[in-house]
């Protein structure tokens, strides 16, 4: 310290004073002093001189040592105070020291003065510094009290020695209640006591700990807290305690739980509806698929890295081109759109998918994100198909009924009416012999016709009662060659040419009798209704389209005016040409057989331009 030490000396005896001053001079202390011998001067000096240390006699004529000490305590308690006395007893001195007097020096042992002054000053400085630290601590304590997180400190035994306001609020214990208690007894919940103890042990080994722990409030309720506990070291790196900061996670937990719950619900909804979602970050070109997306494709998350290529690889080969085009279109137009497609699961199962997407743009209208849903619509699709098939069947059945109503009204009723007419004639007396003969002949003809119709109906009904058994693989090439041989006479006679191309599909699993009959009827039909003077040319082709086998029979024959007769082409006993024999059974039977095999037949024709029949069979 460069400044002089200010010493206030209270002494009324000049001899004693001289001895004291001499002693001070010898001490080597750089000092200045003020000397007082009464209470008034002493009081002023305390206020104005502001001493660093006071040396006071014990007894004055108008004043005394204890009074001086008392006054000093009131005005400046931090100033060290030393009695310089010859009369004080040991016991009394000790009592004074207990009350805060720094020390005492006996007048016959003045040689101890210097060291006592020095010690007093040193203690004072230390005390002052300590007060400074205390001030700093006080600021920090205010700081700690005003922050929102609960802060507590404990010593090495876990005894709480600091507890801030937020801790009071969070745990319900006031600082007064908390301080002095073991932290483990106070705040961990019953279930986490052991864990808390383990954390404490770790802290004592010098490790920090942070994490979630269920804590307990004063009222016994528990909550999840986020804790950060750190060991505290003194300047010599000695562990002296721990500090814990905690905050209530209940709200965040609740929010987390809500988020998790809504995520779980989304997942459930996706799973039930078979709807997944996908997302393309167009800036970073990263693809994201929801869990359901993987599930729909029958793969595990992680098996496949999401990408446009990976997505295309799931799509049915026949739909890939279309899907690619659609995707390209989307990126060019940046418009929301959708598509239906087929895809194949990892195990080979064919599924029907529907995807719909939208773009997200930044404020400059640049696309930044493409997102959409992908739905497995197989169930609906299959149900739709079944319903469609049911409706088709019902419509067909209704048509069959109408057909039979027509057959009853006309085909059965016509010969019956004739039989009635001829019988009446035979019964009538006025009928001549010639008329009788004619009537008998007519009757016989009509009965035969009736029989034919009944037999035909029976044949038709048998076709309709088709069973799936007896299906076999039929080779088209072989079939056509067989027919070619069986109708060799007809072929030669009319110079018929048959061209066929079964390179795409040459086999079908079906009922051989029906397929034969269909081919036979269509081929002979073409020959029957050929153009006069034009050698018949029949072209038969097969192809595979959308999983169906398509057969076409094209001829260069007479053709049919479909606008006028279109609805009757496949009707029973419908004929359009009168120059050839035929009772209108052929095409009716072809249609009946095609339909009973689950297929469809359609016709394209123009008068004098030939006819093309198209047959579709499911390729199963």
């Amino acid at each position, binding site marked *: 310290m460069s400044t002089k030490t200010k010493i206030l000396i209270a002494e009324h005896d000049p001899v004693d004073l001289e001895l004291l001053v001499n002693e001070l001079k010898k001490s080597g202390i750089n000092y200045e002093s003020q000397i007082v011998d009464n209470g008034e001067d002493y009081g002023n000096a305390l206020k104005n001189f502001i001493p660093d240390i006071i040396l006071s006699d014990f007894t004055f004529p108008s004043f005394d040592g204890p009074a001086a000490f008392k006054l000093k305590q009131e005005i400046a308690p931090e100033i060290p105070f030393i009695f310089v006395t010859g009369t004080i007893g040991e016991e009394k001195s000790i009592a004074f020291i207990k009350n805060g007097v720094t020390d005492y020096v006996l007048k016959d042992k003045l040689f101890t003065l210097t060291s006592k002054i020095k010690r007093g000053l040193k203690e004072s400085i230390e005390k002052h510094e300590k007060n400074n630290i205390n001030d700093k601590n006080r600021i920090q304590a205010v700081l700690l009290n005003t922050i929102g997180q609960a802060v507590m400190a404990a010593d090495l035994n876990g005894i709480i020695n600091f507890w801030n306001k937020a801790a009071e609020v969070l745990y319900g214990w006031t600082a007064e209640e908390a301080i002095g208690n073991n932290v483990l007894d106070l705040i961990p919940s019953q279930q986490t006591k052991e864990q808390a103890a383990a954390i404490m042990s770790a802290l004592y080994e010098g490790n920090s700990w942070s994490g979630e722990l269920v804590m307990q409030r004063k009222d016994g309720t528990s909550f999840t807290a986020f804790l950060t506990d750190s060991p505290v070291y003194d300047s010599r790196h000695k562990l002296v305690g721990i500090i814990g900061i905690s905050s209530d996670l209940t709200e965040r937990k609740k929010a987390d739980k809500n988020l998790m719950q809504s995520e779980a619900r989304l997942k459930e909804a996706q799973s039930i509806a078979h709807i997944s979602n996908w997302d393309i970050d167009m800036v970073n070109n990263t693809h994201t698929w929801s869990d359901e997306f993987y599930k729909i494709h029958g793969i595990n998350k992680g098996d496949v890295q999401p990408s446009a290529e990976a997505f295309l690889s799931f799509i049915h080969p026949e739909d890939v081109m279309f899907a690619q085009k659609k995707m390209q279109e989307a990126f060019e137009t940046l418009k929301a759109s959708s598509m239906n497609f087929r895809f194949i699961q990892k195990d080979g199962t064919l599924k029907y998918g529907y995807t719909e997407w939208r773009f997200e743009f930044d404020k400059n209208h640049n696309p930044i994100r493409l997102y959409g849903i992908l739905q497995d619509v197989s169930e609906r699709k299959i149900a739709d198909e079944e319903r469609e098939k049911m409706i088709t069947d019902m419509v067909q059945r209704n048509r069959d009924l109408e057909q039979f*109503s*027509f057959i*009853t*009204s*006309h085909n059965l*009723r*016509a*010969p*019956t*009416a*004739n039989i*009635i*007419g*001829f019988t*009446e*004639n035979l019964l*009538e007396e*006025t*009928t001549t012999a010639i*008329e009788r003969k*004619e*009537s008998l002949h*007519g009757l016989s*003809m*009509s009965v035969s*016709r009736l029989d034919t119709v009944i037999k035909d109906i029976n044949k038709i009904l048998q076709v309709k009662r088709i069973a799936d058994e007896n299906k076999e693989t039929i080779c088209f090439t072989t079939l056509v060659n067989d027919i070619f041989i069986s109708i060799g006479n007809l072929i030669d006679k009319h110079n018929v040419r048959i061209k066929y191309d079964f390179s795409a599909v040459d086999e079908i699993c079906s009922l051989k009798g029906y397929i034969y009959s269909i081919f036979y009827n269509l081929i002979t039909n073409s020959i029957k209704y050929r153009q006069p003077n034009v050698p018949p040319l029949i072209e038969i082709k097969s192809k595979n389209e959308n999983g169906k086998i398509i057969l076409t029979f094209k001829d260069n024959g007479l053709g049919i005016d479909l606008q*006028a007769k279109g609805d009757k082409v496949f009707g029973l*006993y*419908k*004929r*359009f*040409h*009168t120059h050839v024999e035929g009772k*209108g059974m052929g095409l009716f039977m072809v249609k009946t057989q095609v339909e009973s095999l689950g297929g469809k037949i359609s016709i394209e024709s123009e008068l004098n331009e030939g006819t093309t029949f198209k047959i579709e069979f499911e390729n199963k």
Partner: protein
Amino acid sequence: MITKQKRFLLVDDDPQNNLLSKMALKKSFGDVDVKDFVLPEKGLEYIQSESALSGPQDVKTTLFLDIDMPTLTGWDFLKKFEALKESIKAQFDIYVLSSSVDPRDIERAKSNPLVRDFIEKPLNKATLIKMFGGIIKLTHIEPI
């Protein structure tokens, strides 16, 4: 002596039925003028030709028309007939003669203004008497 003879046309693809109808007409009216066509197209041609116009103008020709014919149905026949000149149409009384027992066919025939009535096959004397009861006598007009 001029005999006003009744004239009949049969349009039906079934020759047996035409035979029956002819027999019934003969029984009812004796010697009658009956023409039959198994091809309806030929019938239409005949109607439009001179031969149809050559007969007596004051007696109408009765046409029995079948419905179910393969190349041209009775209904199609009626459509084509409707397009003919009024002077030709006026000469014909058309009856649908069908084996059909389907009420829809009967209703359809009866509702056609060109059709006088629907007659169920076979055509017989009883039916003809019902149809021509009052007229039969007229066919045997005494000579002037």
